[in-house]
């Protein structure tokens, strides 16, 4: 598997560390229910899924990767930082 890091280019998946589904992070004071859902509940879809990967053995960037969990097709990669800032500025989903 290869992931196209926006900073470094396409790299072997051995350079990346997987975290899981890219879920919106609750506010720190969002309460136990919201945090429990965030930590424990996953949709686990068969198909496209937004995921978080870190280019740990490369630039260190956290990436928001859209990947098809059935075919492993890489449908899109953006820097998580950019996606987060765009969402804050109302330019896209978190």
């Amino acid at each position, binding site marked *: 598997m*290869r992931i196209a890091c926006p900073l470094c280019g396409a790299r072997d998946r051995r350079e990346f*560390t997987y975290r899981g589904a890219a879920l919106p992070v609750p506010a*720190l004071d969002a309460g136990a229910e919201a945090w*429990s859902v965030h930590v424990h509940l996953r949709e686990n879809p068969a198909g496209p899924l937004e995921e978080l990967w*870190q280019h740990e053995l490369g630039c260190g*960037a*956290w990436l928001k990767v859209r990947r098809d969990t059935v075919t492993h097709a890489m449908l899109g990669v953006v*820097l*998580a930082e950019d996606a987060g*800032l765009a969402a804050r500025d109302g330019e896209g989903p978190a």
Partner: protein
Amino acid sequence: MRISGKGLISGGRRVNFSFNGVSYMGQEGDTLASALLANGVHLVGRSFKYHRPRGILTAGSEEPNALVSVGKGAAQDPNIRATQQEVFEGLVARSQNCWPSVGHDVMALNDLAAPFLGAGFYYKTFMWPAPLWEKLYEPVIRRAAGLGALSGSANTEPYEKAFAFCDLLVIGSGPAGLMAALTAGRAGADVILAEDDSRMGGRLLAEMEEIDDKPAHVWVAEVLAELAGLDNVRLMTRTAVTGAFDQGTYSALERVSHHLPPSQSLKTAHRPRECFWRIAARATVLAAGAIERPVAFRNNDRPGIMTAGAVRAYLNRWGVAPGERITLFANNDDAHRTARDLVAAGVHIAAVIDSRHDAPDGRDFSVIKGAVVCNTSGRKRLETITLRNVSGEEKIQTDCLAMSGGWNPSVHLTCHMNARPVWNRDIAAFVPRAGAVPGMVVAGAANGSLSTHAALAEGAGAAVAALGQLGITAEAPALPRACDAPYRISPLWAVPGKGRAWLDFQNDVTVKDVAQAAQENFRSVEHMKRYTTQGMATDQGKNSNVAALAVLADATGRSIAETGVTTFRPPFVPTTIAAMGAGAAGQGFKPQRYLTSHRTSLKRGAANTEVGLWYRASYFAKEGETTWRQSCDREVMMVRNAVGVCDVSTLGKIDIKGPDAAKLLDLIYTNLFSTLKIGRVRYGLMLREDGFVMDDGTTARLGQDHYVMTTTTAAAGQVMAHLEYLSQVARPDLDVRFTSVTDQWAQFAVAGPKARALIDALVAEEINGETYPFMACGAITVGGVAGRLFRISFSGEHAYEIAVPARYGEALFDLLVTRAEAEGGGAYGMEALNVLRIEKGFITHAEINGTVTAFDLGMQGMISKKKSCWGKVLSERDGLMDEDRMRLVGLKPKGAAQELSAGAHLFEPDMTVERVNDLGYVTSVGFSPTLGHMIGLAMLSAGPDRLGDTVRLVDHTRGVDTLCEVVDPVFFDPEGGRVRG
């Protein structure tokens, strides 16, 4: 028998080799198989289960029978296919799975017991009594049924692994592959052409046909010459592409020096034996050709019975006639070429038998139509075949039978990403599903296009299409003129009749076995496979799977398309673990991290211990000390009474900078860091988002926007990733950056009552209680080098950590230890460090084991009430604040044995030792020379409420069963006077 002047290797140098101890002569360019056939040797091995005599079936990597062991001693290679092993001067090869010899094999008795050894025999027979399976049945079965053996000694041959990148990977160098490579090469694309064989050309080397009015092999040579002249084309022979993976990643095994005498390869020429490649290809043309399948009939496994295409290959490429009276048995037009070529070469054809009533006539040979071969004879070499047609049965004398049940396109790689091939009735074979592997275009025989003309055309077209996906424009070269004879076939899988008819030669699976599986309701092709072991040998059933499932389809009354195929998985050819794991044996298994003090520590008697990837001094043995405990006890007392020096550089060090550094630290730590004064250090605790403790450590504020964090050695990587996660994902708005500087700074703890004097005398600055109170930090100069000083302690003593750039580490460590020794102190290692911290009740990852909360550690007070932090919400869940949770306590031995053991579990003294009564477990223990007895830390249910209680400590592993007293985890100097003094 070699035919003088025939073949592509004619005129080559003679080479001597030995097989089963007998010396033979071969020719440069021979495989072991072609050389043995040239010498009239057909009996090459014994079959897996029945120990039947077996010969050479094929001429390629799909060979199921002719597996041999090559070489001697530690480098002995078992299960090498004789059809791939090239002969060289001095080659030594042996048959396997036979004793005492391939000619007289004692285990051939199995063949007589065949009626009892059918499918499922092992499952049914060795069921009971169960304990005997592991001890008796399995070892005996494994010894009787088997392949070659390893030498038993460690292999010292070098193996290599490598990465390659290209625009277009072309797999296979037959007509389709060559045209694809030529098309892409001329277009300037970066091309890798990978060929399993030692020579490029594929079937064109094995056929008597013309391309552009030239012999096919001449055309091949011309194309190769052009490709070799292109800088953008890389030709890789002896390289089998073994797997197709995501995003155009392919694995390949290159047999780098199997074809060279040991003296010429390895150590002298620095060649590895094999190289395991990972190839990242933007696009791929699969031109892997097709594999001919045998027909199943009674005793179709005798030496001398081969596939028709193999007989043709031995004749046309290697100039070898595998027999003197050859017969042919086929169900398709293609196989008739074998008879044609043999006749042209002057080899006697005893009979050409075609199962089709409408088979074409031969020009130079007569064809017996509508007939089948129903039996054979000859124990170690084929002697007769029995022909059956409407008029009855007839025996024919023959020493070689060329058989063909048709060709199976090599669809394997197209299935590696879960696609299933499609049944094509016209050629009675499975062909690749379109788009099976993203970026891959299939061409030629692999695509079911079985003429040379079609292969050439598809190869060029495939390259144009594949490169088109990449935006590279390529033009198909003028299509050379080539044979476009139709491939007519009428399916014939198994000849009906009594007796055993082999499907899978390598695993000894017969038509009967498959029928029996169906009868016992293993009707799914995947169940049949596992019940009969069809296709589960090292050849993965390359030439038998389709026939087996056709037999299954017949037995279950379904069509072949309905029955489906088993799953083809990587690797396409057997791959040695040595190649896949190249570089990872021994010290290459994982990186080793050495401290700057490593060498000088060893000189000072250090015994090393592994801490993650790091090597750290465990203790420093002085003269007269015979056990680690003596050294450890001395080092502990040295720190308590004088001064000790310890390398603590393995702790993670993270440089944190930015206007929002303080905000980020307030987010990650449970306690406040924005309030920390410049020049001060604070101990901090961080939680995972589920509320459990992630790590602890100290963070120093060096400037308004500049902190340096230390993590535990174990969690350095995890904390770094966590910081990046928080700043990039959770709070991308924060302006802060992190740099790991663990390797850049060497850092040493200097601890003990004499530490201040030592540091004060060493550094340029004045160090006293006012300039450096407890938890102060700042810049210092030591020997003209700019460094940092932290007044922190992990021992409970008055202590400092002094840091300098790593290149000065060794010198500073030497200096510190020398000065400490002058004061009655010296270096101390991990053992002493551990005892010192247990005496103080300080925690490490033995306690922070992923299941404990700040509450469990008695540190709930460190979770600031003034702010939120990562993980705080979930750390406050009811269950995590329960008084009865296992919580940190100290333990003191009470029994006569005075023993404690880490990992032991704790029980009430009057309760039985069983899971339900488990109260907790011991995390750390050590002998405290300060207190004169063992001490331990433990997680005990309601622990802090039970101080003074007696609990029973049981460690079944070490045989410890003793009583101990629950005490406060801080054993020594609970007021902390020493550390502040």
